[in-house]
């Protein structure tokens, strides 16, 4: 995987490779893999042998970058490439030569993962500053400390950008970034000044602007925005475009009782359903909806008769517009495939 990290760096010289190393070990910890697998990942990421020693029982394991056992003779290792995990446990990288850019982060995450695997560190909160900052359950004082540690200034406004780790970044704006565990798996989160609206990453969601103590809200709206993406047609979504509505969506529990969404489902069962609703929610009249959809207005009229009958209300009348718009967005979230990763089993 060292070679793959090199490719990513060539594609995007400003990409944070450390973030991928972190995400990789986060997944390994969630997957509860054994010491050999942890050493194999470290060796593969670093491109050199990774080792482990425990004093009791006395055991040395050395794994090469292809995941194979090297002999179990513990070599002399430069202390700079060795880390004590906990009492009697040590891990190291057998780097001959100069320190490589990811060595420190690989060694740190390997040590943490080995500690957890050996039952030495389950109780404390190992999360890093950005995860703490974006968690509303963390005390506000602690969140502000994390913000300052990350170089953010209280009183200034920022927004959080969310993207999956497989997003493509033609340009990479600079700001504090990390991977954050969510129920959708590891998400790449990046904090930018409030003035940053446009992000070219596909797919990505840009949250609303808030002060640092409310960035957890920006994060939640960014996650909703990301889930509204539908690449390649919709590559990036800006939470601001939906105003206060996106906050309601972010805070609505999954699977909440939404009878209007069932009605939208019934409309979507028609071959023309998705295209028609997409143009109706963007229009103020039948004629405009017909133009948006690129169909004749008489075609749109007959479709709308079916829509009105199915919904039981007129989407161009009074609260009908709000009901359809809201139900349409909830429907899109419930059918979102953009983060369709197998959910880790132990993420919050």
């Amino acid at each position, binding site marked *: *995987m060292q*070679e*793959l*990290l*090199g*490719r*990513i760096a*060539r*594609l995007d010289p400003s*990409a944070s490779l450390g973030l*991928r190393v972190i*995400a*990789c*070990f*986060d*997944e*390994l910890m*969630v*997957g*509860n*893999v054994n010491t*050999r*697998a942890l050493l*194999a*990942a470290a*060796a*593969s*990421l670093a491109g050199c042998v990774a080792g482990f020693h425990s004093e009791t029982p006395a055991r040395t394991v050395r*794994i090469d*970058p*292809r*995941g*194979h056992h090297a002999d179990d003779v513990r070599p002399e290792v430069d202390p700079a490439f060795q880390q004590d995990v906990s009492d009697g446990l040590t891990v190291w990288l057998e780097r001959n030569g100069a320190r490589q850019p990811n060595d420190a982060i690989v060694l740190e995450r390997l040590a943490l993962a080995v500690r957890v695997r050996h039952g030495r560190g389950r109780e404390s909160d190992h999360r890093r500053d950005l995860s703490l900052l974006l968690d509303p359950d963390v005390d506000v004082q602690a969140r502000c400390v994390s913000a300052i540690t990350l170089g953010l200034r209280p009183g200034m406004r920022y927004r959080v950008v969310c993207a*999956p*780790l*497989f*997003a*493509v970044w033609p340009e990479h704006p600079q700001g504090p970034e990390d*991977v954050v565990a969510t129920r959708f798996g*590891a998400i790449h989160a990046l904090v930018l000044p409030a003035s940053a609206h446009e992000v070219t990453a596909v797919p990505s969601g840009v949250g609303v602007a808030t002060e640092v103590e409310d960035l957890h809200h920006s994060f939640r709206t960014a996650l909703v925005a990301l889930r509204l993406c539908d*690449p*390649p047609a919709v590559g990036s979504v800006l939470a601001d475009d939906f105003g206060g509505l996106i906050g309601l969506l972010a805070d609505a529990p999954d*699977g*909440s*009782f*939404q*009878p209007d*969404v*069932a009605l*939208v*489902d019934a409309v979507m069962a028609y071959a023309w359903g998705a295209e028609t609703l997409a143009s109706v929610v963007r229009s103020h009249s039948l004629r405009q909806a017909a133009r948006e959809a690129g169909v004749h207005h008489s075609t749109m009229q007959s479709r709308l008769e079916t829509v009105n009958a199915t919904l039981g209300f007129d989407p161009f009348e009074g609260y009908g517009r709000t009901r359809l718009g809201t139900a349409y967005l909830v*429907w899109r979230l*419930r*059918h979102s*495939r*953009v983060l*369709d*990763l*197998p959910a*880790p089993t132990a993420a919050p």
Partner: protein
Amino acid sequence: MTAEVQPVARPPFDAELRAGLAVVGGMFPPTITPDLIDFMRVSYAAPPIEDLLAAKGIVCTDDVVVAPDGHEVAVSVLRPKDAPGERPAVVYAHSGGLMFGDRFSGIDLVLDWVSDFGAVLVTVEYRLAPEHRHPYPFDDMYAALEAAASRARDWGLRRDRLVVAGASAGGGLAAGLALAARDRNGPALRGQVLDYPMLDDRGTTASTHQFDGIGVWDRVSNETGWTALLGDARGTEAVSEYAAPARARDLSGLPPAFIDVGAAEIFRDEAIAYADGIWRAGGDAELHVWSGAFHACDIFAAHTSVGRAMIGARNDWVERIIAD
């Protein structure tokens, strides 16, 4: 009454491999649309190979073979430097969805056959879609296979121990070569190694629909690749079985096949069906379906327990067929 959407039921990824996706996703997004072909041509280009060859004691000689339309196809002939004379040989088609990659993409694993079993590897720079549709990529590969037989003495190959191999799109090409060699009384083959092969342009299997937007090479990527190769013909009766070997009606008379595939990838069902078709026709096929494996996980995450097991099983089979 609530509009609950059931998540797609699908086999899970292995934990070590899921961790690997955190890295792989940065250079190989799950969904390749036509607008990402240029990105993939950069990201999937093979790195310089000289150091690796030197470390493995392998000598590389470049040559050309001539395709039916006169195009000169570049090939590299890779052989162990301390093994003179005529050696067993593998004609290899690289991976890359028919649209990207080059003859050294994913070659690391195949080089084990040269360094460990003394084989000569002929790897082929077949032309890529969408600029070059079927039959050009296939014709380029077949020209290389014929050259391996006709120029065996030049290249130091044993004509009686010739194998075709390929991964992903290259696996589909290798399967097509075996069909064509049978139909055209072409070079006699001792085996075909089809790693998670891309065999079926129709995209109708259950596994194709289980891995949409996740892993490596999803349904949309596959549509992009087949459309690049076949254009409007994709999915129609006009598609040749040399382009999409899943369409072959007769799978008898083929050389022994080794087929491996992940349980957690879109090609699972077509790989199983191809092996089954060979068995039904009275042929010899060895099929491995690897639990928890995403597409090409042995290339991207060779260090994992699943990756090692895949590589080990394949190398054992290849050793059986080609080693002295």
